[in-house]
């Protein structure tokens, strides 16, 4: 990341980023809102530099904010109609920390409404297109953020990852996407989806920038009591020698090109002296059904607060309070929001709780135990991010279960609260990016990021950024 200094003015950097943002917007639909006032913030940074004042570690660096983070700049809608008239009076802790270091938000990025989705097609503000092929999806739910970094509009973007919402769009657009250990970064001021797996993370063009962003944003916050006592900054980088490969995913359901790219990278690591250990993890097969019980259950609870009364959009047709709630929620949520709320209420309702919710919570224990056994045999796990590269727009929107299958390799990690990083490692013949997922034990975040740097140095990391810049010049 280039921070502002005497040679690179913040104003020039931000102007350039805003120009790109406007230029790409009509084609890719990256943003819900572009912050033209960002120039004023850049002017303040330049004035501070001119006065010789101390500036932050992100001074003048443009970033994009996933539109489910509260910030006093622009409206936070979570890309849903029900929040279209909401402007936050506070900043999320993460936003406050980034801006205290001088980072400048140039736009709020599109997502599947309330982060429910794997393609950014469930947004009230339309679909975001893939950075490499605009007949294909950006992935999701943080699709806008992934594309903003892939197109080189910003140096980094924030994301949230409940079951893969950072890692999968990172893979689909050829950028780095990091979901830290559960509780590493405060979620205060971020629209809640499923509180037992929601994580804040980032998209960047390299692993080193992720380390800087973690140094700035990780840490305990008295406003989010699930945050872990500070560990990132002081944790030791462990040596990585053994890399685990999960054997249990059925190759029949995985795209051959994606499998070949993975195979090639594994061989490359072996040649570089890493030991590759094969892991049998049969319980992972049950992670996706368990996830689609636990997460809707938590969603049904977290989304009960949206009723049109205290903030956001309100249906004007209601004759009484009950109608106000029901009509506001019916018209304000996207279909996928409603499906998840209803499934959540189903699995929690009397007569079904034991068979679904409790069963899933027990499956979660077995999944966690399986990872603990795995990390006795290896230092990190290497896996695919998704079973396929970015798919065609509209190809999964009519079949919710096929969309859920997109998350099959990312949700097990979320249920166990582990850190995981999607790194760009190659492209299919059609030029679609493919990412691999590095997974570590809880609190191994620094080791994971350091290892990703080493992998990139081996030539495994392949970035999409140069091509998107080329495209821009056309």
């Amino acid at each position: 990341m280039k921070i502002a200094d005497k040679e690179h003015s913040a104003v020039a950097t931000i102007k350039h980023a805003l120009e790109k943002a406007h230029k790409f917007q009509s084609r890719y639909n990256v943003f819900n809102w572009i912050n033209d006032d960002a120039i004023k913030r850049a002017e303040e940074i330049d004035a501070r530099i001119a006065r010789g004042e101390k500036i932050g570690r992100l001074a003048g660096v443009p970033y994009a904010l996933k539109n489910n983070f509260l910030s006093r700049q622009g409206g936070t809608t979570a890309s849903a109609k029900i929040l279209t008239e909401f402007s936050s009076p506070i900043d999320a802790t993460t936003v406050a920390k980034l801006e205290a270091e001088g980072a400048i938000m140039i736009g709020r990025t599109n997502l599947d409404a309330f982060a429910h989705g794997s393609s950014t097609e469930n947004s009230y503000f339309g679909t975001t297109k893939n950075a490499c092929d605009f007949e294909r999806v950006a992935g999701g739910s943080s699709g806008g953020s992934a594309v903003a970094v892939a197109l080189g509009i910003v140096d980094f973007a924030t994301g949230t990852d409940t079951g893969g919402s950072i890692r999968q769009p990172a893979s689909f657009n050829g950028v780095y996407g990091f979901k830290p250990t559960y509780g590493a970064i405060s979620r205060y001021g971020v629209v809640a989806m499923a509180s037992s797996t929601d994580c804040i993370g980032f998209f960047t063009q390299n692993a080193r920038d992720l380390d800087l962003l973690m140094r700035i944003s990780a840490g305990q916050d008295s406003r989010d009591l699930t945050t872990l006592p500070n560990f990132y900054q002081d944790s030791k980088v462990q040596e990585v020698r053994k890399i685990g490969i999960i054997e249990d995913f059925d190759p029949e359901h995985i795209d051959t090109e994606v499998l070949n790219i993975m195979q090639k990278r594994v061989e490359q690591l072996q040649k570089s002296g890493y030991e590759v250990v094969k892991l049998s993890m049969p319980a992972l097969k049950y992670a996706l059904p368990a996830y689609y019980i636990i997460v809707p259950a938590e969603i049904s609870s977290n989304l009960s607060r949206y009723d049109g009364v205290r903030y956001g959009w309100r249906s004007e047709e209601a004759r009484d309070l009950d109608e106000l709630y029901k009509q506001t929620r019916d018209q304000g949520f996207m279909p996928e929001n409603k499906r998840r709320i209803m499934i959540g209420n189903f699995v929690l309702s009397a007569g079904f709780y034991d068979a679904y919710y409790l069963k899933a919570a027990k499956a979660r224990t077995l999944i966690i135990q399986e990872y603990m056994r795995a990390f006795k045999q290896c230092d990190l796990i290497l896996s695919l991010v998704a079973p396929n590269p970015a798919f065609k727009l509209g190809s999964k929107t009519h079949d919710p279960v096929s969309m859920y299958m997109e998350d099959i390799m990312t949700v097990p990690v979320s249920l166990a609260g582990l850190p995981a990083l999607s790194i760009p490692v190659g492209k299919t013949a059609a030029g679609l990016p493919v990412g691999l997922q590095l997974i570590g034990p809880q609190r191994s975040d620094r080791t994971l990021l350091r290892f990703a740097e080493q992998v990139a140095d081996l030539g495994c990391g392949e970035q999409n950024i140069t091509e998107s810049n080329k495209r821009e010049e056309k």
Partner: protein
Amino acid sequence: MEINQETVSHLATLSDLALEEDEAQKFEGDIEEIIKYISQLDELDTADVEPTYQVTGLENVWRVDEIRPQEVSSEELLVLTKDTEKQQIKVPRVL
């Protein structure tokens, strides 16, 4: 299990959603498919397994019981709602 319009309508009530008829019909099939999918958990033996609800082992995180200054004033919060009267949020009749 079989999902019918009665189940959908019950879930819509629990969810505070006034579903239109065509959407309720579409959801009937969707919800049945989803429940069929998540029901594969039945195969998994979970006898003697404790459930997990929290993954990092944090328990009882206390803070000092003290009054802290509020970041946001009631005026700043009231501007977020549609209709107010005498510093209160106004809604349509309840009954």
